[in-house]
């Protein structure tokens, strides 16, 4: 366990450096910077802009120099201040990261809770109408564009009034709510974005689960379990599903990237204040410290997610030992 952790942390360092360097390089090489918008503002003098440019090292166009100016303080835990919001980047980003984790986490849980029984059912009733229906639904889920699905959901929310059409909580009532009410309110706002984002990975999980279950159901120990006189349900639920879960957990690591990309669009449509919308806004404004810190967070989320997948695999399957 300890060695696995150390190895993963060590392996993530080159990845972090490569990705942040690439991001910084692209930011430096792209035309214009944050200060361009300020020149148009008559209230701000050119010497002030000059000073800001010096302070933020925007006057240098050397990629390596600029990267070092970011990297050195960042290594000491200082991610700088946002250009546009004059607040420390960490304070801006923490809440956003939590919101995105909330959204992607619940989407993952939902898609697993739906995919495992559906995949198992499709395998048990293989080739019959149940299998066909599940196959078709997962196919539709695979093909529906996130943007379109999100917009349809917003429309649904607006028409029926059953769910809030956007945001993370009720802006007006939030301050007077009790903790319990806040929890319920956030959950209420979470439903539709979770459905959309949960659908993104659903089809893949269902297919994988079905394939794996078909494989497992033909094994000898399943026949033994049936011969022992266990009910069909017990065999499927206790013996087959438990053994079919492994590849699904491996898939979890891969699907994180998908999920985070899908989260950007879902957050954008549902005005969910997450990491995705933060990066999008920061990129538009060329707010470099925010982009950099958010990129670090994104990579960290991927690394930690993959680590969790490995640990989970070891917990579920005693045959796999972490070294």
């Amino acid at each position, binding site marked *: 366990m300890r060695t696995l952790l150390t190895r993963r942390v060590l392996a993530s360092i080159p990845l972090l450096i490569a990705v942040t360097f690439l991001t910084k390089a692209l930011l430096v090489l792209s035309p214009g910077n944050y200060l361009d918008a300020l020149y148009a503002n008559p209230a701000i003098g050119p010497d002030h802009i000059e000073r800001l440019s010096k302070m933020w090292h925007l006057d240098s166009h050397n990629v390596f120099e600029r990267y070092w100016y970011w990297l050195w303080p960042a290594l000491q835990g200082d991610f700088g201040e946002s250009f546009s919001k004059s607040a420390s980047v960490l304070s801006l980003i923490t809440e956003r990261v939590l919101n995105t984790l909330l959204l992607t986490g619940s989407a993952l849980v939902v898609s697993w809770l739906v995919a495992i029984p559906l995949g198992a059912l499709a395998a048990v009733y293989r080739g019959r109408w149940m299998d066909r229906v599940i196959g078709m639904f997962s196919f539709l889920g695979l*093909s529906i564009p996130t943007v379109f699905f999100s917009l349809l959901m917003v429309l649904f929310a607006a028409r029926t009034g059953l769910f809030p059409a956007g945001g993370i909580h009720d802006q007006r009532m939030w301050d007077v709510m009790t903790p319990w009410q806040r929890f319920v309110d956030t959950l209420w706002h979470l439903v539709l974005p979770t459905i959309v984002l949960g659908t993104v990975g659903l089809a893949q999980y269902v297919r994988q689960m079905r394939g794996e279950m078909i494989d497992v159901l033909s094994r000898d120990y399943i026949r033994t379990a049936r011969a022992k006189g266990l009910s069909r349900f017990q065999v499927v639920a206790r013996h087959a599903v438990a053994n079919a879960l492994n590849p699904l957990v491996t898939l979890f690591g891969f699907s994180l990237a998908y999920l985070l990309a899908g989260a950007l669009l879902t957050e954008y449509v549902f005005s969910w204040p997450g990491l995705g919308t933060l990066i999008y806004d920061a990129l538009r404004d060329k707010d470099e410290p925010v982009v950099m810190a958010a990129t670090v967070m994104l990579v960290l989320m991927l690394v930690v997610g993959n680590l969790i997948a490995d640990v989970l695999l070891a917990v579920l399957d005693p045959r796999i030992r972490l070294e």
Partner: protein
Amino acid sequence: MAALYTLVVLYAAALLAGFLAPYSYDDADHALPFHYPMIGHVHIRDENGRFSRPFIYSTTVVNPQRAEYAGDRSAKHPIRFFVRGDEYRFVGLIKSNIHLFGVDKPGRFFLFGSDSLGQDIFSRILYGSQVSLTIGIVGILISTVIGMVVGGIAGYFGGPTDFTLMRVVEVLLALPSLYFILILRQLFGEGLSSIQIYFIIVVILALVGWATEARVIRGMVLSIKEQDYVVAARALGFSNSRIILRHILPNTLSFVIVTATLSVPFYILGEVALSFLGVGIQPPEASWGNMLSAAQQFRVLTDFPWVLTPGFFIFVAVIAWNFLGDGLRDAADPRTLQ
């Protein structure tokens, strides 16, 4: 097969967009923003209950602020075929102004309604399909070439070359592509023509998307290079590039085609996402993505839901490509059927 027919119809419609669309993509009637779809308002019986050629009643603006319209029974516009209207180039070559259908001026025929500028959504969907549907094909061609070259080299030479290239592939696969695409898009700034943006989008998507192909092809090359005919080619003293290009890569083709077909939706959805976020194809040019971005305004979405129509077309195109890819995969590898 239904998928293939759907795709043929969609791509044919994109090719003939100018002829099929009653209006040009930027033909705006500012007096008629957010006009409701007329598809359910085409009459085939006149006021006396007799059958006549299909016609629509003209509409009058009731409340211009709220974009409310009412049917005006006093005037009707018969739907005519092969009418003259906006000029376009037939199949991109022949100048023409004949459209498949339309109504006489001053009437307007909005099959799927109109958008905020009073442009015909049906016409814009047709013109938009030229962008949204071709981006998939062009993108897949570029990324397949990159993927075949990289996968071929990595698989054939192995060792450190393979190791380095595969780490790059892994990083590309592990990163959330959309963020990477957005950052790359920054590099090109704004104020570009739509043709430039089109190619920028294709190149960016291909730069991100080749990794899947490279990995698949590398895996196949690894097994193919042990085959007798490759060993024979090597014994004959052929150059490495000749062996890769002439002996190995052609044998991966069936799987390359399957992977390529299954990745077309990635390009279609990539363009949709970029244009929807406002960094892709810019109005007045139409693409399915930038048409959808109108729905991002809450009031527009709730009051004029027909602005979502392009979304159905994206959905259908993506389903069709996925179905086709699945079918091809089953055909190429019958084992998956079991």
